């Protein structure tokens, strides 16, 4: 394809991304240096780095950062492990049965996140099924407090995204060469040994892919926290995203919120740059 044709074809998409991603990012940087509430939107007041020093000295910001890190650290390994195990089991059935299981397992993942969280929360309402079960089993009253809200957020995260890893690993298992397994069987390898020495190395590139996208998505968690904590500060269950949102919409410190978003962008880019370089080299080599 010629250079001119390429630019002609790609221009609508590239124009939209320049206009609505690059320009807004520049605006966010600019707004981060200004004091702005909903009242002086047309004429923000320049305050230099004050928003940034406000954010960095804000204990609530660091608390939300810690909870986001904790969330990511628990949820991402759970997705990988549970998804891989269930994919192995799903690989053991076939035909119609497999299709039915697959449809059901996918259900959480295709439900609107906000709605899935509301459904999940219904189980834990004062009259909910799991509230009742919890109280029967522990004979203590279940109530929403810091620990229970944080636990529910983590549980919901695991429940909601595992279908994605199941499907990815399952697709990977379908391409596993049978000869490798047969050769191992002839050598007398047990099932667990085969999984450990053949299957896990075989799907390792998928694991890298899942880890990358999981980390990218889990630090951005917003919808489920919004519903389960109701942005109520008493639960201390803010993530970086919900705290940024609360700073913008509830406290109306738009400049500070922009500074927070920019700090998040810098943080994620630092993590991402080695990977982006790797992708860049791969793409250059491929063409």
């Amino acid at each position: 394809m010629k250079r001119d044709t390429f630019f002609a074809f790609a221009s609508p998409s590239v124009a939209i991304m320049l206009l609505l991603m690059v320009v807004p990012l520049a605006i966010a940087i600019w707004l981060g240096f200004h004091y702005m509430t909903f009242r002086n939107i047309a004429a923000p007041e320049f305050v230099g780095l004050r928003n940034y020093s406000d954010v960095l000295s804000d204990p609530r910001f660091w608390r939300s950062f810690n909870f986001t890190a904790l969330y990511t650290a628990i949820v991402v390994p759970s997705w990988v492990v549970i998804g891989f195990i269930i994919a192995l089991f799903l690989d053991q059935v076939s035909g119609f049965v497999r299709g039915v299981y697959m449809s059901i397992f996918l259900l959480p993942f295709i439900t609107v996140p906000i709605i899935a969280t509301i459904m999940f929360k219904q189980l834990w309402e004062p009259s909910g099924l799991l509230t009742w079960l919890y109280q029967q089993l522990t004979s203590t009253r279940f109530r929403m407090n810091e620990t229970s809200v944080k636990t529910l957020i983590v549980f919901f995260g695991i429940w909601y995204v595992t279908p994605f890893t199941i499907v990815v690993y399952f697709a990977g298992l379908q391409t596993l060469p049978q000869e490798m397994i047969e050769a191992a069987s002839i050598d007398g390898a047990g099932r667990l040994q085969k999984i450990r020495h053949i299957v896990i190395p075989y799907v390792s590139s998928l694991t890298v892919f899942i880890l990358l996208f999981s980390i990218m998505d889990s630090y951005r968690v917003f919808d489920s926290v919004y519903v389960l904590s109701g942005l109520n500060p008493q639960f201390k269950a803010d993530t970086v995203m919900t705290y940024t949102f609360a700073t913008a919409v509830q406290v109306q410190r738009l400049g500070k919120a922009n500074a927070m978003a920019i700090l998040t962008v810098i943080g994620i880019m630092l993590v991402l740059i080695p990977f982006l370089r790797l992708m860049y080299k791969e793409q250059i080599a491929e063409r």
Partner: protein
Amino acid sequence: MDRITSRAGRRFVHFVLLSFTVYSLVPFIWTGMQSFKTVKDAFSRTPLLLFEPTLQNYQDVWIRRVPENAEAIGLGILLAVMVLVGLLLTARSLPINDRLVYGFCLAGFGLLLWAIPQLIYMQKFYDYFINTLIVTAFTITISISIGCLAGYSLARYAGLAAVVILIAALAFRALPRLAFVLPYYWIGSLLNLLDTGLLVVVSLVAVNQPFTIWMLRSFFMEVPKDLEESAMVDGANRLQSFLRVIVPVAWPGIISTALFTLLLAYNEFLLVRVLTQSNWTLPVAISRYTGNESADEITLAAAASVSATLPIIVVILYFQKHLVKGLSAGAVKG
């Protein structure tokens, strides 16, 4: 992997899969039950598994005032829906051109959605539902049209610019939504575009574009190059050969991508929540039911949740193969 053959082993496999089924379904089943309960039953101290079902919650979510000839209207709507769905399902085997039938069904559904509020006094929830359909439809159309052009050219052009665009798109895919949405809010309020569908659609197209072009590119890479080359030898230009030869071949992949765009637009909460005050889509509308814990809100939230989820489940079950293909396509190729 080789199959487990022992009887106990097979039982164990099914035990695990069934347990996971229950785990996946519990919230749906419980919410479904709550949505059919009276407020009194829903608040029972011990959870009621057997109860007398009521449609009152669904009525309260959708309908403001029940018209006098409710049965006749309801029957008419049901009949119209059944005819349209029947046509859709049998379109392939009818002796008429498929596209004509699909177009007719689309027009029919549009007319029906327009006619319902003329006949029945509906709740705001119905407006939010229509909003969601409009926003989703426009987002898919624009996103996929420009995404196909870009995805195809990125799959075929070997220059450095293509690589740079791809890597930049990947970086943007990783960034937090709020870094874009807060500036959108600022631009929107300066241009007086807040609370309009236009701003929501354009923003949705933009934030999902990186994902869309990556996915479409991976599907266009699968299409052999000789295909458009032979078309171009026959005198078609790039655009013609793309539209007439490449798009039909890549169509399943385009459907997969459209399905993901559908989910992304239908699911979007944060962006719509920030950019609109009253012109909501369903996720934002439904989140309003969970604000405080007054008595009937639990059952209303349940009924609203089920109402908003059913259409998506129907669409996804119909296109499930495409969804799974899309999920694994991104994965297997990295």
